[in-house]
């Protein structure tokens, strides 16, 4: 994927994630359904992780191992945060 293409893909991932989450939260608030609101919040929290995954995939495809491992490290720490948080 060319540099411009990956930038566009990241742009759409971030913007799309925010708007999907906003739509879910607004619908949940209007309909009085907390599950939708929580779903919207979860989508919002996952959006940056999705962006890191997208970049990790791009580095892997280019065989850019240094940056692949950097992004994998960031993803690993985020996953650790999710798992560690459940333990509390």
């Amino acid at each position: 994927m060319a540099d411009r293409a990956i930038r566009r893909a990241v742009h759409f991932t971030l913007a799309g994630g925010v708007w999907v989450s906003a739509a879910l939260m607004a619908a949940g608030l209007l309909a009085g359904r907390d599950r939708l609101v929580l779903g919207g919040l979860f989508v919002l929290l996952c959006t940056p992780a999705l962006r890191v995954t997208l970049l990790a995939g791009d580095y892997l495809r280019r065989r850019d191992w240094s940056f692949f491992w950097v992004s994998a490290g960031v993803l690993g720490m985020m996953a650790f945060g999710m798992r560690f948080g459940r333990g509390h």
Partner: protein
Amino acid sequence: MGLGLALTGALAGLLGAVLGIGGGVFLIPALVLLFDLPMINAVACGLAAIIATSSTVASVNIESGTANMRLGMVLELATVAGALLGSTYAALIPARALIALFAGLLGVVSVLLWRGPQAASPDETASAPAGPLDGEYEDPATGKTVAYRLRRLPVGLGVSFFAGGLSGMLGIGGGVFKVPALHLFCAIPMKAAAATSNFMIGVTGAASAFLYFSRGDMLARPTAFVVLGVLAGSLAGTRLNTRLKDANVRHAFAVLMLLLALQMGRKALHG
């Protein structure tokens, strides 16, 4: 209460976009002082808000090429580690101590805001990119390509770790520390430093926010109202496109933040 939260979020988003420092520093005192939200819930709410604003602004900066994604990813290793540490300890620190810490932070931010952006470093356009973390972008204001080389990466990593820790503990983005450090110590041009910092903030916020979300500290409805308000406010602020250059207005906000710091300090002392 929902409308009040949304309006507060909108105001914080607007101020954050216009001043270019993120809305968390306005949002969290407002939630604690006006809505009597416990500090831990206000921090969780602030984290969700900064993910929303960061993702919105970063999506634009990435497409334009201003944000240095490779540098951002490397610095994210430090900010996420700091954020995990900060958010873990936030649950163990008494609420009053967190409020006092936030009051101190507001004091520092008000001083930084009063001083305003530092002058550009003389060598910021001197070198063509050579290493994988160097970068270049086209400045829409001048139409010229600005190229730069990264310096003193360890300083950038250290400041990013510190900013991540504050983000996880206090629910702010930390850009107010990262942007000047990247510019002054790492020789990154101001616009690229701000865009790269913003690019990182969403990931830093998400790393801590998952912890708050999993612990049940993120109250669904109040957070949703605030996030929707912040989104509307930051979009309006971006459209205004008037980053305040007028020193008098910036000074007025610095005084406002100092007053908020005093109020938060009073709440920390007297409850």
